[in-house]
């Protein structure tokens, strides 16, 4: 009996205690004040954490061999950014000349088990399987610029906006030639077969259409200086008078500008593409027909290294709330003119 009454009292005590506890808890819950009142908004902690040195990570990097300035800048930027972090070891592997060569190089890289891989594929679709393989092996894969055909093959994708680049160029030209519907507009794209060229040209045409303008002369070059010179020389013969020209690529733009100067033409203005240092210098000096360039920044390689580091350390992005880096980042195509060129000069890449 006593045992049972003692049992009872113990039970009562427990129940009572629980009730009191619940009451206190409930009372506490009536308050709507929260300790972390800025939940769901940016936290300084995230920003600070993203910058603070974390556990040492190894990041593998693979991009096509530099055959022109832009790709060269991609690899250079990645190396420079990685060198700024004391907790990052960068392993650059040669991507070879084509997709199969890059796949072979990546197989070796995956075998060495890096924490993350930043990958600018020779061809997005062809490299998707190897991206998936790396992801399945627990490696953080940051897909740079050329998109995999399956988004599950990468942790995050950061890329430029080719269509938006065309829009930006079309808008700049449209604003300048507004109302002049008989304006003669030329276009010098890079390699015509590439999807990126098609996207750029479509954006350009779409933007011009809103101003009632169309492209009258279009000559494809090949992203090289020499092809730019040849394309432009012939284009200038086809069009004795031009109002504006958009040249998709500042690397080939060196040749395009040379041809324009050799022909002694200056009745039109030109918009460039990508944002090379040389193009910016000309825009700043105002010594050529080049008055503007729309960016496709190779600085994205630096950003990709930053993303890879954060993701591998399990951190979110500073200035953002989420505890993981975003899945997809599409960069703006910015318009550089004489007015803002000084701000962009440090980002200009060497042709």
């Amino acid at each position, binding site marked *: 009996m006593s045992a049972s009454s003692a049992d009872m009292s113990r039970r009562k005590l427990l129940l009572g205690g629980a009730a009191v506890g619940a009451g206190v808890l409930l009372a506490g819950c009536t308050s709507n004040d929260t300790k972390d009142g800025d939940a769901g908004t940016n936290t300084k902690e995230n920003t600070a954490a993203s910058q603070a040195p974390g556990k040492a990570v190894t990041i593998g990097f693979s991009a096509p061999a530099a055959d022109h300035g832009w790709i060269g800048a991609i690899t250079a930027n990645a190396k420079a950014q990685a060198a700024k972090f004391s907790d990052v070891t960068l392993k650059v592997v040669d991507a070879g000349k084509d997709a199969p060569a890059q796949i072979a190089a990546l197989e070796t890289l995956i075998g060495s088990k890096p924490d993350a891989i930043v990958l600018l594929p020779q061809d997005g679709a062809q490299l998707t399987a190897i991206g998936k393989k790396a992801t399945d092996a627990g490696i953080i894969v940051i897909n740079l610029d050329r998109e995999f055909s399956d988004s599950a093959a990468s942790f995050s994708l950061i890329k430029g906006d080719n269509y938006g680049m065309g829009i930006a160029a079309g808008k700049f030209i449209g604003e300048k030639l507004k109302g002049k519907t008989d304006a003669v507009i030329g276009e010098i794209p890079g390699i015509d077969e590439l999807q990126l060229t098609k996207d750029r040209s479509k954006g350009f045409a779409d933007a011009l259409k809103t101003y009632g303008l169309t492209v009258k002369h279009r000559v494809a070059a090949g992203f090289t200086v020499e092809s730019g010179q040849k394309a432009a*020389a012939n284009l200038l013969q086809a069009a004795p008078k031009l109002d504006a020209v958009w040249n998709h690529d500042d690397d080939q733009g060196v040749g395009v500008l*040379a041809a324009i100067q050799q022909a002694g033409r200056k009745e039109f203005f030109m918009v460039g593409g990508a944002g090379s240092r040389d193009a910016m210098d000309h825009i700043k000096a105002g010594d050529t027909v080049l008055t503007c360039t729309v960016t496709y920044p190779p600085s994205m390689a630096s950003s990709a290294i930053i993303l890879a580091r954060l993701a591998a350390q399990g951190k979110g992005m500073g200035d953002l709330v989420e505890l993981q880096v975003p899945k997809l980042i599409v960069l703006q195509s910015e318009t550089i003119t004489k007015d803002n060129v000084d701000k962009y000069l440090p980002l200009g890449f060497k*042709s």
Partner: protein
Amino acid sequence: MSTATTPSADPVELSKGAASSAAGQSWWQRDSADSAKRNLALIGVLVLLLVIGAWTRSDIFLDIDRLWSNELTVLTQASSIGVIVVGMTFVMISGGIDLSVGALLALASVWCTTVATQDLGPAAMVFTALAVGAIAGLVNGGLIAYGKLVPFIATLAMMLSARGLAQNISGSHTQITADPFIKSLAGDRLFGVPYMVIIFVVVTALGWVLLNRTTFGRRTIAIGGNAEAARLAGINVRLQTLLLYVLSGLCCGIAALMVVSQTTSGSNTHGDLYELSAIAAAIIGGTALTGGRGTIVGSLLGVLIFTQITNLFIVNNLQLDIQRIINGGIIVAAVLIQQFRVGSFFRTRFNK
């Protein structure tokens, strides 16, 4: 060469004996007229292209000022590849081939626009371009003549290494030059004719003289016709072969300077696929891959035809994919016509 034309079409055999045996025949019946007939046909193609131009873009091709300006552009565009074709024609007539021309152009363009070279002034840039081309040609020639490598393999190896070295030196960057002399080569004109065109014409003329009016040219044709016979005849085949590749390399050096001037830069991407364009132009100009036959004028016309076609496509705002198909067709058509018509057709028709 088709068997129907017989070796007597070879200019090397245009010795006194052949000439006297041909005496009394009409111009058309002489075998030596074969290359002239071929070239006339090529000129016909060029005229046809201009007629197409006049038909599709009368505003350009029927306006004398714009036609002049357009054709000067065509000649300027043809100039660098044209200089290379002169060297290529010599090599091909001797029975060889030079696949490294595009890569040598790239290497010379990069080497002559490095900061170190540019600091030494334009004379150093010119010297460097020519020297790099000639020395690389010397290596090609040495491997082929004395190392007994097949020309295809030796120059293929050079193509890869030279392009790689160009990439290595330049770091795959475009090396821009602001040198006023180099820039003036492409920008300035003499009596209204761009210097590029003048260089092109001078090199071609020198090439013609060298091939047709010197023993060097005769030896070249002899080697291509039959190397063993040439050796037995006392020609130093090895030395001659070596010199031919040096000549081709030198042409690449000149062309490199021209491209540097036109693009105001040196780059490892310069001269892309020039080897194929040069071989194609030489072939439709009547140069035999087997050697022993070919003319400078024919190759020159070959270059002009390709360049004029490109120009026609661009002034008509057409895409270049169809042009590639047409270019391929032209090569086949030109060779077929040379093999069957010029040789046998004329003979059966006019020489009954």
